[in-house]
């Protein structure tokens, strides 16, 4: 249904865009707020996300991705763009705090994944080293880059990259099984 609405958005149908907004805005607002941690900024980012969706709906390929994944990815990318453009940034939250946020379960109308897909990524993440896993989660949920993760963990950049790259290779192997 979302795929069909996005197809209509691509043809310039504003009602279809409204449908997409109504069905997905709570989820995408959650994503923006998680990264930006500021409600006003998240609201601005969310508007920009749907303007992007309006302009880029034709580039969405339903055969390659699920609509909600695409939308959530657009939102995460836009939020991270804004996060990185800030000239003054709050210090990154310590890892303990990040855990608290990450454990919330969504109560959303539009879930991204079936239970087994969800189980797979969580299982595979559990097979990699604790630090690498936490850093990968911090990258996903907080939009932190390599330099920021290295700073937070107080390790050299090269060390952080090695940890994460090893973790990603192992993750890949597990996900293929």
């Amino acid at each position, binding site marked *: 249904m979302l795929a069909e609405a996005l197809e209509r958005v691509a043809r310039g149908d504003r009602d279809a865009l409204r449908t997409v907004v109504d069905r997905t805005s709570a989820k995408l607002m959650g994503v923006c707020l998680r990264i930006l941690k500021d409600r006003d900024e998240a609201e601005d980012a969310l508007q920009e996300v749907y303007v992007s969706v309006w302009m880029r709906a034709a580039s969405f390929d339903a055969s390659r991705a699920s609509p909600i994944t695409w939308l959530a*990815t657009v939102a995460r990318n836009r939020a991270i763009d804004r996060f990185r453009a800030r000239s003054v940034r709050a210090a990154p939250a310590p890892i303990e705090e990040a855990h608290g946020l990450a454990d919330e379960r969504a109560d959303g109308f539009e879930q991204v994944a079936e239970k087994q897909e969800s189980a797979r990524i969580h299982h595979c993440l559990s097979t990699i080293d604790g630090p690498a896993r936490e850093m990968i989660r911090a990258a996903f949920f907080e939009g932190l880059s390599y330099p920021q993760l290295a700073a937070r963990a107080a390790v050299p950049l090269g060390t952080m990259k090695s940890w994460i790259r090893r973790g990603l290779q192992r993750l890949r192997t597990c996900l293929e099984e």
Partner: protein
Amino acid sequence: MSENVPLAAEYVLRLLEGEELLDARRRLAGDPAFADEVAFWEDRFAPLFDEIADEPPSPELWARIVARLDLTDPTVVTLRRQVNRWKGATMAAAAAAAVLLVVAVRPTPPVQQPKPTVAAPAPLLVAALGKEGLAEGLTVAYRSDRRELAVTASKLTVPAGRARELWVIPAGGTPISLGLLSDGSARRPLAPELAAVFKSGATIAVSDEPGGGSPTGQPTGEVLAATGLILI
């Protein structure tokens, strides 16, 4: 290829910056195997989105999205109405009910291709004025990096023998004419002295004038709409 694996995952996670990011973007554009690997990781990480709690957005969300879309759309639809008092000693009369809506828009960057960290985009000042009896849509946008003013009007209502004149008023200053309005879009570069007026605190207004515009160089007729500019 296993060498694609970390780079594609790093790209999806947004771990990359600088040269590594540019390299990944080049690969995405030119290498189908890399693009497939990126799609693979986007799909596999996606269930993590379900760990993020939903958040109800502002009830104004749709209206604000429409306002942003309308700024680039010549067939502008009238936006919200507010009662506003016009404070201007040189204006003949305050508008009884002027539409005041200031919308600030930053040019939207491309989607799915994260940009390297760069300076903020060029400042943009925008005003949107639309009112029954004046126009279905009227937007004024000023880009300071190009010193260019863009005015778009649709379905202006102009009684025979009258004109609609556009003004910019510096904070605490006297109005400067920007010319007469007509349907359609027009862009013009501004001389530096005029460009200097376009900043936060300035006001954009439309007045009713005799055909051909104000004979005095200052507004003579009723203020039909007015709104402030905000710099972003």
